[in-house]
């Protein structure tokens, strides 16, 4: 499902060169739920961004759904992000000026051939999956952190991606809300065979996943 071969990432600025990732080889099977752990600055987010096609690796090969990423062109990347991937962030990144359901519809706006009724229907289904059907017309500011993260998850899954990438999805939440989010992710993984890759600092959440990949200083240590 996800294959990384010798992936490298070096950030170059005028004066300094930061090696964020060195020789990462990773193979995530379809339907797997793995977590990535490691100290701050060890390259977890960078790795997730490379998988999520938000960042271009300096070296190595990336393949998603058996499709090797050969050309990093804007149009192709946009389509891959839209159709194959769902991204969840630590700080939710909801658009405060849009209602919950409008936020969830966003990925569908960038997809061809969907009527507004289709979009609305799918968004409502996604919100139901995360248990937020009663907050559809609220605005993000009117929701708790856990609810906001569930909106973000609904937005990530509304396009039925095969892969869900989550960068510290529980990092901004207290442990109870964190557990709720974990349950949502686990049920998505279990019921819809969605492949989940989650970055976390929290060993308690990591233990709930099938496999833990550990990074240290940009290197894969297990």
């Amino acid at each position, binding site marked *: 499902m996800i294959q990384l071969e010798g992936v490298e990432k070096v950030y170059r600025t005028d004066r300094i060169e930061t090696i964020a990732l060195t020789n990462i080889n990773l193979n995530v099977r379809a339907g797997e739920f793995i977590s990535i752990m490691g100290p701050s600055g060890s390259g977890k987010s960078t790795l997730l961004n490379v998988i999520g096609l*938000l960042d271009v690796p300096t070296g190595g090969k990336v393949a998603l759904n058996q499709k090797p990423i050969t050309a990093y062109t*804007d149009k192709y990347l946009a389509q891959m992000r839209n159709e194959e991937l769902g*991204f969840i962030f630590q700080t939710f*990144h909801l*658009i405060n000026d849009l209602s919950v359901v409008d936020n969830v519809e*966003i*990925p569908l706006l960038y997809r061809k051939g969907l009527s507004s009724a289709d979009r609305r229907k799918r968004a409502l289904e996604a919100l139901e999956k995360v248990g937020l059907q009663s907050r559809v017309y609220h605005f993000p500011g009117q929701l708790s952190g856990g609810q906001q993260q569930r909106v973000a998850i609904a937005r990530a899954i509304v*396009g039925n991606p095969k892969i869900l990438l989550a960068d510290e999805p529980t990092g901004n939440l207290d442990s109870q809300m964190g557990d709720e989010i974990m349950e949502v992710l686990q049920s998505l993984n279990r019921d819809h065979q969605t492949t989940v890759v989650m970055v976390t600092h929290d060993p308690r959440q990591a233990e709930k996943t099938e496999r833990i990949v550990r990074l240290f200083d940009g290197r894969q240590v297990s």
Partner: protein
Amino acid sequence: MFRHLCKLVWNRKRVNFLITLEIFISFLVVFGVIVFAVYYLDNYRHPLGFNYENVWAVQVGIEKKSDDSDRQRLLDTTKQMLATLKDFGEIEHVAAVWGAPYSRGNWQSGNTIKGRNVRFWGNFMTDEAKDVFGINIVRGRWFGKEDDGANYNPIILNQKTARDIFGDEDPLGKNPEERFDPDPDGPSPSANREPKKPERVIGIIDDFRKNGEFAELFGYQIFRNTLTMPDGREPRAFVMKVRPGTTAEFEEKLVKRMQAIAKDWSFEVKTIAQMRSENHTSYYVPIAAFGLVAGFLMLMVALGLTGVLWQSVTQRTKEIGLRRAKGATATRIYKQILGELLVITTFGLLIGVLVVIQFPLLDFLGFATKQVYLYSMLLSLALIYLLTIACGLYPSRLATKVQPAEALHYE
């Protein structure tokens, strides 16, 4: 996507309100200037009704007694003047008129017809004026010998006045005064002086736009001036068609001779072309001044708008990054930012149009015809759209430069 844009704009109405207001005000200002410009241009393309090439005007200042007792003498002098001028080899045709083209002052008259206002400017001309100005007769004829001693006063109308008074009827041979509503106060005191001859329309001309190309399209009547009592009038100007190539030196000769005939009159010689360009300047200057002010205002608005949009894009890098992460191409982002701007602009312009179409109902800017009004409106709309799009181009391009990974990195 359009609905999504509208929703975004609407939900940010507090931020967008100021931009809307700015666009609304700009529209009003631009419209104000454009409606004048379009009005003048529209007037310009209508026929002038006379030729001004090689036509000179000598405007005369006459000291005149208030009781008209010296009128016979003034008329005799005028006749003598015409005869003398005619003898000049340089002069092909010469006539005495009340108002030379592009001169100041209008002789205005009017009345009501079934409660409807009919107004027109008038002029008094001697017979040769037709040849001086090359006036085009559309129907009927110009003044001539057949009018001498007739039991009517011959008059010539422009097409607008003919239409205003007689509608689709043939005006030739008719008396306009019979069409006017009776005076509610009874006959005026001057009416019992001596019975006046009835008027009779003998000809229709294209037009005679004495006030020039930019001036209002107005009704016009020309009365025959025979320079005889009791109806003859002393002129305010002599107009003459001079031979091509006549130089300014002729002016001195001309004035000398005229002064010899009428010692107490004053003369001012100008070519009509000269008067025309002075007249045009009097239109250009205010339009240019207003245009400059409006242009300056537009520049300020443009700079302000660019700044606001730029800032809004920087404030929205997270949103833009998020959209990129969710599958928006750079092009889509570009279109979104411009699209939002267009929605806001359209909203401001919509209010502007709603306000501006009230003006004719309130009889404000009433001089403009429907077409002029519509044209000005469309032009102003196009201009404001162009302006806002131009302001949005750079900020929109900036938005496409947002890299999702960086935009979403840290809080």
